[in-house]
């Protein structure tokens, strides 16, 4: 939050004559993939999962075709390990919520009332909380039964779970930073307001785990965000 306030403060006090400052809000969906290696886990696939995102946006016109964009964003970065074949029905899903601050340079081109912006920059995020849910085999609830041929077969009982993820100081790295790129399309409206559609790709450079063991397999988030938003001009400095 301090970082966001600093950005606001810098933008407000260093406003040049031709500057334009927009603030707004957006909401949408995320699609996250946990980049890791689980090839040793039999009948298991690593599936990306959808989530939600939304936040407050700040856009500051720098000069010519360039804007500075930032804000504060809530983003879910979810993933699931799903069992297949004989173990179909078993899965482990992690739903993680992050508070994220991007700092992006926008290269803008205009066609009539439409602005197309190419975005590139960095982001920092904090892992707020998470939930785990899924279905797992429960061998202590399982029983063997005899089939019609007299053969014993194991009746594997599956147990559902859903609970808040307990962060471990030793294991979990709750700070994340990475690179962000994407495209924003602005639709200019009356009164210098804009409706926008934004697609962003966020590539974490940090592991979701601390380096707590040797030969550790990395786990990094790779997230696509798609959102719609609204920006309104806070100040028009043209004289």
């Amino acid at each position: 939050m301090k970082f966001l306030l600093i950005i606001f403060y810098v933008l407000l006090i260093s406003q040049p004559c031709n500057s334009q400052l927009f603030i707004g809000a957006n909401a949408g969906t995320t699609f996250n993939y946990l980049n890791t290696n689980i090839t040793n886990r039999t009948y298991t696939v690593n599936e990306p999962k959808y989530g939600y995102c939304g936040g407050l946006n700040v856009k500051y016109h720098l000069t010519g075709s360039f804007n500075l964009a930032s804000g504060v964003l809530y983003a879910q970065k979810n993933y699931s390990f799903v069992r297949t074949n004989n173990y179909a029905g078993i899965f482990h899903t992690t739903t993680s919520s992050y508070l994220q601050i991007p700092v992006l340079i926008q290269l803008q081109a205009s066609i009539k009332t439409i602005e197309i912006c190419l975005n590139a920059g960095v982001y920092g995020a904090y892992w707020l909380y998470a939930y785990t849910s899924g279905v797992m085999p429960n061998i202590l609830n399982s029983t063997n039964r005899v089939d019609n041929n007299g053969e014993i077969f194991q009746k594997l009982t599956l147990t559902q779970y859903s609970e808040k993820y307990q962060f471990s100081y030793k294991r979990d790295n709750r700070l994340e930073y990475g690179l962000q790129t994407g495209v924003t399309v602005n639709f200019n409206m009356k009164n210098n307001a804009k409706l926008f559609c934004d697609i962003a790709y966020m590539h974490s450079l940090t592991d979701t785990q601390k380096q707590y063991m040797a030969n550790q397999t990395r786990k990094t988030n790779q997230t696509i965000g798609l959102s719609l938003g609204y920006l309104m001009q806070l100040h028009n400095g043209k004289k």
Partner: protein
Amino acid sequence: MHKTILLLLLLTFASVFTSCEKESTTLNTPTSFSEIFEAYWNSMNTNYVYWDIDTTDWDEIYYKYQPAFAKLDITNQTDAITSVEYFRELTQGLIDSHYHISFTNTLISGYFINPSVTRKQKLPGFHYPYSYYQLVLEYLDKTDNSFGQYKTEQLTVLSGIIDNKILYFGCSKFKLYSLYSSASENDVKTTLQYFFNKLANLNETVKGIIIDVRGNSGGDLEDLNFFVGHFINTPLHFGFTQAKSGNGRLDFTPWVKAVINPENGGTDITIPIIVLADNLSASLSELLVMAFKAKYNCTVIGENTAGATGPLTQTKVYNDGQFDIENYMHVQTSSCKFKHLDGIIYENIGFPPDIYVPYNPNAINRRKDSQLEKAISLIK
């Protein structure tokens, strides 16, 4: 300026398509001791379920033993024996009491490592198994008992009435359901039918039940539900299990409830149940002790159990537990952690008795079973 922005965008997009992930070791046929150790060490990271409570510094093990294994020659028998000693050293502190290594390589076949047994043999009060059944027979009503053996499985079961007031059942290991459901007749089945029939038709003269799992090293997991399910008519929550959820040492599933469901015809046994256990009661025997303790009317007499509480199953079920390194070794390790209803993990500790009565060889020599006599005195 535009070139700078273009470069920035290109760099950012490039990062999308490049990532560096360390491949985990998956090795079928090792060609050197370095490969064997790497495969073993990595499999332990993934498959061992006690990393959150085991104090072994596994990274330190890697840095110490990786260079040592690298110096060994896989074709040299002396080096192969040295590798066994290295494995013995590096596993000595692991708390999983199911943990053992057997070697499948012809140079060292027959070598066996069991850290838990090695530790227990050094403890005061350690004793080897004693088969109580002939002694217990002397306490049973001579005309109302059933004794069964299944010699190919080294399984003995015994049931009967003591003093016309106590129903007794004991078994040396668990393969009960398998034999009970067998199409062919066998002595174990006969004894189980005798016991379950008595249990389902308890008359008022029976004041208590003694379940004897002393020296019982465990066995088939399904016997837990099959046997205890005859004592309940509603599900019995007796603990929790937890398995690995990922490859990291500290990747775990949540704890899920371990519940025993009633068997068909199961009745809620409300008279006192006394379980006899000793420090050789292991694995499923301990789970049975803890399941009965979750009932309000159970007392445990004897010694601490063995402390091998984590259940075993096939590796594929949880993607953890036992694993093999082809043509070299088999590693047995628990598939799950078990936590009793009281919130304690008794692995490597053993479940404590309510009344401590130690193994007494002098009394046994006088044909006196002091643990059984204590149980009888409580019911009377």
